[in-house]
């Protein structure tokens, strides 16, 4: 047994790394919502496709004899990011662009349709059963040792995998923040977010900017998919639904439209889920209920989320 602080510490780290997965997906929701004002319901499925591509990429690398862990992970990362970018682009081009300017509900319904389609597409092509992956990065960083009641030593450690997840995500966030705040692409995106007509009058290609937003969202979801695959070691065609809804909850909690908010919300949701599962009685069975309850409560009492700006409905 471990003492209560070590237990708390392990839960904390595990919650943060899970929260990063949600945060990376949530950024996709929040970016798309910010720029086109729709919930990209199929985003969870894009994440699931990223996870599958990463998994298949690992087996391809192994078949090519390049199974050395750093190379394999790099290949998984790159391949799933590229392929997912194409999925994001195609999704926008096929299902959402033709409906721009339509009612609010029409794109949401195509999004649900795309979500069902993509789920079954992967299920039919890759099978319905969970696909396992053996742990790629064993071991962990040893932090301190505690005495257990049985008078044996217990070493508190952070697994290298969780450290890697945290490092990758933070690096990605730095790069992403740079793109949004410093490059012309980011400027165009922020301009389209404020006023699409005005942006297009000033020579910004709105369609291309929106498409790029979907591509970036999908690329981040691919990273989330890779992390999920490494973290859980088993994926199936249905993971996108639950992860998608939870990430959306994270986006709402952080304030939809706000990028730091999405990451914050993701980490909070990850922590809530992990701590609820770790501490509440029969918590692991009801952890999804806890997350959904957070969603309902936030929407009722603070629909703009923690960092969001109030959205005034115009006539």
């Amino acid at each position, binding site marked *: 047994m471990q003492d209560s602080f070590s237990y708390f510490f392990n839960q904390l780290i595990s919650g943060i790394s899970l929260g990063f997965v949600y945060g990376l997906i949530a950024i996709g929701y929040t970016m798309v919502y910010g720029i086109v004002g729709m919930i990209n319901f199929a985003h969870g499925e894009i994440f699931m496709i990223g996870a599958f591509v990463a998994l298949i990429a690992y087996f391809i690398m192994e078949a090519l004899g390049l199974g050395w862990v750093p190379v394999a992970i790099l290949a998984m990362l790159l391949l799933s990011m590229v392929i997912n970018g*194409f999925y994001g682009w195609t999704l926008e081009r096929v299902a959402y662009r033709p409906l721009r300017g339509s009612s609010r509900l029409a794109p949401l319904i195509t999004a649900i349709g795309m979500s069902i389609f993509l789920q079954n597409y992967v299920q039919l092509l890759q099978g319905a059963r969970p696909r396992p992956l053996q742990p790629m990065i064993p071991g962990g960083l040893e932090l301190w040792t505690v005495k257990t009641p049985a008078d044996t030593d217990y070493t508190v450690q952070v697994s290298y995998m969780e450290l890697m997840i945290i490092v990758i995500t933070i690096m990605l966030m730095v790069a992403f923040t740079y793109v949004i705040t410093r490059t012309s692409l980011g400027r165009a995106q922020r301009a389209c977010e404020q006023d699409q007509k005005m942006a297009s009058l000033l020579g910004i290609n709105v369609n291309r900017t929106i498409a790029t937003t979907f591509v970036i969202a999908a690329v981040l979801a691919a990273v989330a998919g890779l992390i999920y695959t490494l973290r859980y070691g088993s994926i199936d065609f249905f993971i996108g639904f639950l992860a998608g809804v939870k990430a959306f909850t994270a986006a709402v909690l952080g304030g939809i439209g706000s990028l730091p908010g999405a990451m914050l919300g993701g980490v909070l949701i990850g922590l809530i889920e992990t701590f609820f599962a770790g501490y509440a009685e029969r918590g692991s069975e009801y952890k999804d209920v806890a997350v959904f309850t957070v969603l309902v409560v936030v929407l009722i009492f603070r629909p703009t989320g923690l960092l969001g700006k109030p959205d005034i409905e115009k006539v």
Partner: protein
Amino acid sequence: MNATARPLDVPAMVKEAALTAFVVLMLTVILVGFELRDVPGAMALYTRIPDVVACVALAFAARIALVLLREGYRGAVIVGAAIVGLLLLIGLLPETLFGTEAAARTARRFMPFEAPVVQWCLFSVTVFLGLRAAIGRRRVRVAEIKEREAAADRMGARVQSIARYAGPILGFAAVAMPVAFRNDQQVMSVAILVMTYIMLGWGLNIVVGLAGLLDLGYVAFYAVGAYTFALLATTPDIQLSFWLSLPLAGLLAALVGVLLGFPVLRLRGDYLAIVTLGFGEIIRVVIQNWYGFTNGANGISGIPRPTLFGLSWDEEAAEGQIPFHKWVSDNLFPIDYTPTHEKIYLYYIILALALIVNWFALRARQMPIGRAWEALREDEIACRSLGINPTNTKLTAFGVGAMFGGFAGAFFSTSQGFVSPESFVFIESAIILAIVVLGGFGSQLGVVLAALLLIGLPEAFREVKDFRMLAFGLAMVGIMLWRPAGLLAHREPTVRLKPAAAGKAK
């Protein structure tokens, strides 16, 4: 023939097609090109290169066909699509077409596809292109969405006028159907299933079609109704009959709907959708994990069937009950026992329930509350300024829809005799929503057609069952793109101000 054909810019066309082919290559190269399969002890990687090649080639050809269509070369596209379609069909159904095993094997060698879904997709694309070329209506490339919605509205209005005659005819057909199939248990089972979905569709139509509230968790109310009856009927001390439980199930579902709706109905449309989805999942997870109350994932079995004034449908009834066939034989005319009697009885129950929902929806449109729903759907802010309380109005729609969902749920549990959380997953909500959407928001007839199409057809063609959900998703997307308001949309206000009164108001 090609009077409208314009000279082709071949390099541009090839470039466009090559780009499309490249995108399709990237989409398919991993997910279609490789498959992980279980082999004892590990996973093995299989390749499906021919499928990827076929996808890319067809994408290239399809894009060229689209350009040709745009430039007015219809004949070439029809011929090309016919040839490719025929080739694919040979690969798809070799046994049926050639009869012999050897010929089938030869055909397979030409079409070395591993995944049938790829073949079917390619075949559908080809058929679609061929049909479009054959119908030959020049597509307006960037049709205004508003225009398309208006066109859909006009069509919906036309259907509405037809519905005045078609409705009673369909109703009569539905009542008479069991007479024609009185010996076919299979057909009656499918009819009950379709009728259940029609009822659910009509119930959800009140919420989505009339009041414009996108509810992605409708199945939660269905579940509440189903478990209410299941628990009331199987708890030893209570053991209520179906007819007593039915109103209770509806009331409880409505109560749950109102309790949920009260806080969340202030939210805007898409937020509401996600909250209802979350709520549907909460209900399912609770049912799944609350072993002491709902028996968890194992579900509740042994739910009694409804009786007809105390007559049982079994061959040999339990004590104190008389079997239906015996009673009829004794009092009216001799009949033999057949399990189909029970199916027919269940069918009439669900038909009656569905017609009640339909009647209510049609009546409500004439009443102030229904008009308020329709007005709220069109413009919430205007409604508020005219003194309609949006929360209360939405709440009634939500509660009424939930109540009908609860009725359907109670019926579901009595007709199945077994309920488990498996039956109440999100995809059920999506199917019901798809029925409403495909039929056209607010169109009663559209729901019937969509339910026949989406539930009846896959039951009739069991071979394509695997692809059912795939086609479902595609159909949802396609119909939304083609007619954003639904197939038989009916957004015309049911009640209009009299022209004279409108003139005076000016």
